[in-house]
């Protein structure tokens, strides 16, 4: 059992002076690495939206297409559906954010990171950035697939980037929500279940799959306060290049942006509100004050 050939332990090892960005980057890398290590999760969180995309267009395409065409003449159901699937991807991926946090708490990494000199804000910025990055990639994949299936992004590449941006804005409030649940329950199953339970009512009771006018009254009422409606309508406005925002009617810019701006504004407000709750819970969980 000879001592390993190690040291010159001589030089005092300087901390290379991590900056905020440096600390965030370190965590960004770790969470990306973990995501790549778990291709199963990556794939599964894409499979469901893809199944939706294919099934809905194939099964409901003819029926739903009619309803869509009444409001949006000349728009096929694929084109109508793709922005909704993009939002679904954002929703599904955001759930895993809280799950990641619970896992970190369970395997001790949460505490381990707390004893390092890294900025705690940077730690969570890095983690969230990794999740946002993943969501962007997944939405891009869905858009590409949608185009292959016959959807038409009328606004082109710029519109696609805009849809991804809306998807990210949409995902943040749910990321915050799933992290808040994670901290409160500290339990993987509870986090997955509570976030998943919300997923389908949110999606179906919105303008995601059918125009609001085609839906029963009570669903319309709920859909008007459902964040999914705002995300989907904003993304869809970009997709079809006209104002299809169903809930709030503004005429600030004239044209497509009138459909995007109100949605974006609502989502930003929601992100800030839920973000503040999650940040408060997180900083309480990582504070050293006896709780």
């Amino acid at each position: 059992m000879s001592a390993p050939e190690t040291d010159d332990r001589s030089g005092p090892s300087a901390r290379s002076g991590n900056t905020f960005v440096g600390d965030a980057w370190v965590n960004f890398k770790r969470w990306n690495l973990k995501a790549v290590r778990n291709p199963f999760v990556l794939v599964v969180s894409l499979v469901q939206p893809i199944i939706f995309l294919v099934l809905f267009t194939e099964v409901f395409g003819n029926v739903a297409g009619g309803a869509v065409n009444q409001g949006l003449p000349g728009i096929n159901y694929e084109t109508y559906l793709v922005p909704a699937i993009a939002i679904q991807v954002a929703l599904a991926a955001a759930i895993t954010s809280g799950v990641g946090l619970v896992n970190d708490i369970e395997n001790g990494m949460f505490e381990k990171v707390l004893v390092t000199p890294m900025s705690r804000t940077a730690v969570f910025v890095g983690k969230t950035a990794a999740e946002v990055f993943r969501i962007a990639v997944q939405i891009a994949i869905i858009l590409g697939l949608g185009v292959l299936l016959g959807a038409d992004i009328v606004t082109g590449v710029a519109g696609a980037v805009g849809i991804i941006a809306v998807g990210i804005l949409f995902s943040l409030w749910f990321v915050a929500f799933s992290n808040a649940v994670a901290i409160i329950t500290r339990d993987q199953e509870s986090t997955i279940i509570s976030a998943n339970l919300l997923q389908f009512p949110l999606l179906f009771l919105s303008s995601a799959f059918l125009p609001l006018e085609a839906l029963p009254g009570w669903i319309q009422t709920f859909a008007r306060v459902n964040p999914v409606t705002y995300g989907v309508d904003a993304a869809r406005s970009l997709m079809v290049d006209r104002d299809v925002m169903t809930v709030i009617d503004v005429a600030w810019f004239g044209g497509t942006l009138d459909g995007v701006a109100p949605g974006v504004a609502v989502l930003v407000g929601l992100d800030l509100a839920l973000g503040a709750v999650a940040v408060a819970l997180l900083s309480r969980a990582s504070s050293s004050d006896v709780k």
Partner: protein
Amino acid sequence: MPTRDTAGPGDRSRDGNDAAAAASASAAAIDVDGLELTYADGTVAVDGIDMTVPEGEFFGFLGPNGAGKTTTIKVFATLLSPTGGAVRINGFDARSDSRKVRESIGYMAQETSIDPELTAAENIEFACEAYGVPRDARTDRVDELLDLVDLADVADKRAEEFSGGMKKRLDAATALVHRPPLVFLDEPTTGLDPKARNRLWEYFRRINDLGTTIFLTTQYLEEADQLCDRLAVILDGEIVADGSPSELKREVGGEVLDVELEGGQAAGERAADIAREFDAFGDASVAETEAGISVTAETAREHGTDLLVALRDAEITVTGFNIRAPTLDDVFLAITGEELDADDGEVAR
């Protein structure tokens, strides 16, 4: 720290000047005054601890389950804020200067803490980056530590595939990446096989020889005996004894005579009574053990055989006996009235 730079596990260079100044103002690695920690539910886990651990010392912190070891070490590592008293780590106040404290310490938690989805090498790399080990030193540091904890040949395997002991070793490696001048180890070798334990001991000893202060909690008295310059025994949140291992053993008072008996508990009780009445032992302390009795007395060696004769006269059958120097187990028994047994599987909390 010019006098130290050959030993230099020091991490003081980032803020070199004020760190060095703070450190020389108090040469203590750990300086604790009246530390109290009461959890939110009212549990008083630490109840007024004073201690000073000078730089370079190998310090052991012993106590039974639930004594308050982990709570204390978490306060030192800035994971918990003291509810009373003052704590200075490497010259920095643990409460107000917690970031400086975190830069200058390594911490290995009682529960193994690694990222199971990353490989062994990636876990160490992440720690290197988190502690800001300079980029050009990282590769060497990772290799060195993998080698140290004997995981070089599974460097690229995911940690989730490791056995408990391998995970523990990996965890130990990640606590040392930045060569901190002070390392906190909370039961670092619990659950390791003897070979792995010896290897870690050897390393702890070596980094201690090079100047690293080590604060170690353990349930293995042998470990404390082997490694530590000085010990403190904590019981119910209070320090009930401290000193070097040999000082503590001396406090036990004399040598220990273990007598094995036939006849179970009844025989044990009778034998204990006889031993207590036995004039030649003076004020011996007598305890009943599983196999018989254990007598600690200054004169155990001289008069041990006399006791055996007395037992035979009382028709108690002696099946074996042994006279030995006291161990830390005896210290523990004497102080706490309970045996410290790491293998009893009892885990507080």
